[in-house]
């Protein structure tokens, strides 16, 4: 998928790839100068485009189909991943997955939304839109982490909770509410990281934690810009204005004090540089795992409660 605001970036990248390949097959090919030139062009273009993304453009990047997904992060960050299945009530939603994992020498429980890259994967995962079964599986695994006394890392990347008739019938609202309620009292550290789309209640349903991180091009919103535009402006095409007004970017949310840290993606976005992205995510997780391991169980829950108590801007008069 090409994003129009990326201008001729894809073409330059294609050309670079071609020349690099040419160099490999024919070591005598005189392409060095051209390559250097193209790489400079690309760097300056990345800088130009990515240092001034509009909120709506950031939404596009956050949704980019080539962006790393949870299983990419797990493969790149975790030495080991033992997937655990099932909610013990109804099913094994693929829109939220989870299991035991190691990050360097740390043992954690990873949970998170899983989108797909192919149509087949997206059918299986509901495009990362979880059902009540997914939220209940996540809660079960968090309780398991609590029993095993290991920290929880929650990866958020969803357009929202699945708006299906069966999901309503099985209590989508209750499942999310239950998680919000229980997560506030879980007696192990919870690190939340928004890696792509933080879509409303479907994101928050596994998003209550001690520290909330966001990748620099991820977004987090109470409603999709399109949804907001069609309700407030009665015009879905006003999504860019809505994205602006809703303050959905990591930058805005950091300024509002909603999130604790922004993890800077490599220039050009996570979809251009998996390795660089995985590296910074891993560093950030290890940093916060080490900070939180020093906090007692009681303090953890107390502080988490206070953290959420503080969220809100109102007047008294």
């Amino acid at each position, binding site marked *: 998928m090409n994003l129009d605001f990326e201008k001729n970036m894809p073409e330059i990248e294609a050309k670079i790839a071609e020349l690099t390949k040419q160099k490999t097959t024919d070591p005598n090919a005189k392409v060095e100068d051209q390559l250097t030139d193209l790489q400079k062009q690309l760097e300056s273009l990345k800088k130009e485009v990515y240092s001034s993304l509009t909120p709506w453009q950031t939404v596009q990047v956050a949704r980019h189909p080539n962006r790393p997904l949870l299983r990419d992060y797990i493969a790149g960050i975790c030495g080991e991943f033992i997937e655990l299945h099932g909610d013990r009530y109804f099913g094994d939603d693929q829109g939220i997955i989870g299991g035991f994992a190691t990050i360097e020498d740390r043992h954690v429980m990873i949970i998170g939304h899983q989108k797909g890259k192919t149509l087949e994967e997206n059918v299986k995962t509901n495009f990362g839109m979880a059902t009540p079964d997914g939220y209940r599986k996540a809660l079960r695994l968090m309780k398991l982490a609590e029993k095993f006394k290991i920290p929880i890392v929650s990866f958020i990347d969803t357009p929202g909770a699945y708006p299906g008739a069966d999901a309503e019938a099985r209590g989508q609202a*209750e499942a*999310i509410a239950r998680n919000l309620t229980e997560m506030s009292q879980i007696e192990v550290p919870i690190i939340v990281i928004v890696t792509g789309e933080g879509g409303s209640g479907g994101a928050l349903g596994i998003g209550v934690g001690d520290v909330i991180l966001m990748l620099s091009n991820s977004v987090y919103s109470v409603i999709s810009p399109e949804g907001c535009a069609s309700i407030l402006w009665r015009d879905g095409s006003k999504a860019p204005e809505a994205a602006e007004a809703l303050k959905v970017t990591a930058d805005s949310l950091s300024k509002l004090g909603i999130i604790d840290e922004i993890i800077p993606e490599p220039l050009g976005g996570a979809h251009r540089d998996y390795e660089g992205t995985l590296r910074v995510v891993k560093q950030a997780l290890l940093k916060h795992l080490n900070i939180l391991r020093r906090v007692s169980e009681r303090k953890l829950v107390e502080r988490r*409660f206070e953290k959420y108590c503080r*969220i*809100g801007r109102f007047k008294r008069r």
Partner: protein
Amino acid sequence: MGWFRKKEKPPEVVVAKEDLWTICPSCKAHVYKDEWDKNFCVCPQCNFHDKITFQERLDILIDPGTFREINEEVTTADPLEFKDDKGSYAEKAESTKAKTNMKEAVVTGRGKIHGIRVVISVMDFRFLGGSLASGTGEKILLASEYALRHAYPYIVVSASGGARMHEGIISLMQMAKTCAGIARLKKGGIPYISILTDPTTGGVSASFATMGDINIAEPKALIGFAGRRVIEETIKQKLPDDFQTAEYVLEHGFIDQIVNRKEMKNFLYKVLRYWKAK
């Protein structure tokens, strides 16, 4: 409670014809406004329970003269400086406040139900659709903390379309904030009763409203997470009429009982007597 809605109606000599009738939003029956109001805004034809104001709700549920509001001074700020085509959130909030004489979409306080002390939060749909935002969340949390401190049962009457977009992510976070309060009630052994009225959807259904030790709904109330239109677009099918009604949600296991408005106070009283009963 025959005086219901009476006090708000000064006697008039000339009454426009359309003012004489209320049309039931559910069955479209024409009902005399007087009859409608005396019937607690419940349709005598189909038993649809229409929206009522927080004051009416308190009059129905709380012993006369016992209600004491808490945190009444909490009111909206405008953290995002939100504007849409029709104006700014700040302006909209101000005109809503003037019209409703409320400062936020929920009124909280303590009071008695047939002598039993309770803490109660009542949402009012007139205030920006009963939407959940900073002030709403703060008041609901503070009320639950008040209940916890005093060991009084906590009751929330929900009526809300969901989170208030105009405060963006901050509104979303009120779901977590209010639920954190509910979790402390659960841990502290304090009863929490949720009453779901028409409508209770979106971020409110997905937070405190469905977390009651006992969840009670009014007949035919719309209760659900996602909007009907969004779901129909997703599943490419028309949904049955009863989808997301209180009756439907009861059948699917999320509501303890559907209770008529007139019987609600007695029902609460009866249920509350079981807490630590001898």
